[in-house]
């Protein structure tokens, strides 16, 4: 009887151990399979993202090249022609020196031409900022802020605590960040009703941090507004292209704040 009882417990312990091993193996294999599938899917997604980034990169590059070409054409061709027209009007001598109608025509023509020259220069600078190319992001954004401050549309405070980092940025990165800040300022002026905006450049841990804030009505979440605006999409695309990350404060009905972080230790975009 004792021998039979011994057998029962040995058999039960063996059965329990066997089931334990069986179930554990089943779970471990299913975990391994699931993680393997996940890894494959992630690799596929990463390849897709990389391809999309390449396309985006090409689009942005060609866009910048086109902007530069149009800007130069405007500046060199239209600007020069209009300046020539101004000289031509200056050279035109009236039949009588007391011809008041002629003097009035001369003055109004010159003022219109001056305005055209100024506008053409502004448009061509916007399309392809020469300051950015020759003096870097800090100078370009300072110039842009000065123009806006002088127009009285917005009071911008620019603080630059990362001068060395900004000087080291490559032209494509500087252009991307300039376009992003330009778009943010444009959004603030057009949509937010803000009176003040702050831009702060600070060095981070192997990164450049840009804090942008205004005192406007803020940006409604995507679900509330019909869709994401073109401006915000442009910002996202530009930042994606240079591998920068951004975080926006949640909508609270007042003020807008975005923090952009560009990793400075990555290979040149």
């Amino acid at each position: 009887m004792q021998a039979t009882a011994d057998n029962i417990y040995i058999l039960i312990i063996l059965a329990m151990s066997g089931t334990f091993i069986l179930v554990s193996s089943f779970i471990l294999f299913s975990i391994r399979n699931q993680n393997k599938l996940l890894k494959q899917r992630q690799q596929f997604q990463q390849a897709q993202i990389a391809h999309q980034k390449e396309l985006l990169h090409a689009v942005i590059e060609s866009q910048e090249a086109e902007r530069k070409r149009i800007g130069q054409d405007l500046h060199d061709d239209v600007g020069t022609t209009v300046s020539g027209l101004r000289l031509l009007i200056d050279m035109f001598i009236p039949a009588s020196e007391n011809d008041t109608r002629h003097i009035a025509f001369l003055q109004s023509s010159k003022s219109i031409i001056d305005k055209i020259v100024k506008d053409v220069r502004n448009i061509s600078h916007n399309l392809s900022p020469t300051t950015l190319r020759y003096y870097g992001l800090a100078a370009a954004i300072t110039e842009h802020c000065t123009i806006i401050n002088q127009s009285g549309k917005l009071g911008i405070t620019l603080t630059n605590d990362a001068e060395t980092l900004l000087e080291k940025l490559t032209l494509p990165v500087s252009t991307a960040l300039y376009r992003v800040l330009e778009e943010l300022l444009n959004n603030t002026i057009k949509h937010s009703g803000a009176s003040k905006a702050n831009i702060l450049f600070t060095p981070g841990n192997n990164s450049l941090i840009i804090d942008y804030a205004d005192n406007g009505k803020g940006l409604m979440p995507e679900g509330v507004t019909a869709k994401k605006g073109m401006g915000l999409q442009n910002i996202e695309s530009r930042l994606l292209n240079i591998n920068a990350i951004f975080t926006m404060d949640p909508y609270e009905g007042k003020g807008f704040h975005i923090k952009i972080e560009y990793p400075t230790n990555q290979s040149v975009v």
Partner: protein
Amino acid sequence: MFISFIYLRLINISMFFYIYSTFVFPGSLLLAVVVGLMYYKYLTEPHKLIFNYALFSLLANIINIITIELHKDTMMMNHLYTIFEFVFLSLFYSSFYNKRGKQIIYAIIVLFEIFCIVNAFAIQGKIFNSYSHTSAAFIYIIYCMLFIAKQSTEDTDANWGSNSFNWVNTGILVYYASTILMFAANNYLTNAGIEIYKKVWLVHDTIFIIQFILFAIAFYKCKPQQTISIS
């Protein structure tokens, strides 16, 4: 398991069994409860059901130890434990289903509780409730397999370990699948002698400890991970 099997050959089995079942075994329950309390604010409703189950098991175990020390019969406690355990675990699994699935599980709970009560008073009142315990284990295994089938089709975008419910389900599946045969044969083991009975329960306790360690990991996994929104 094998370590404990060899170990029980080497030292006094009674002393080892006493230490293991009185301190180590409730210690694993305490570990799950403490981890659950630490991350309680992050626990969702299904997690809280498992936390309550761990808490209930801890209290039941303490009462069981005290009752044994007082040399009182603990069989009725086994019946009660099975009833409450079934409610906690069934409600946990019901939370993964839609209204229809929930209704089916609620019906299973009601029917099973009736069966447990009938079993406690009319069939196995004075002995270990092997019928109800084994049936419950069988149902839990079905719940676990259905959960795995559901998760394998739905939860495909995340790492297995990042889903805390996977840890809970693994604990339950490993424990009940491994011990179902022991529950079924428990009354035969009781007749085979106390020493044999203790040896089998040592193996049971080890698997039970593994289950509650997996629960503790599940509670720890509830802590939200830091995420960065990238463009």
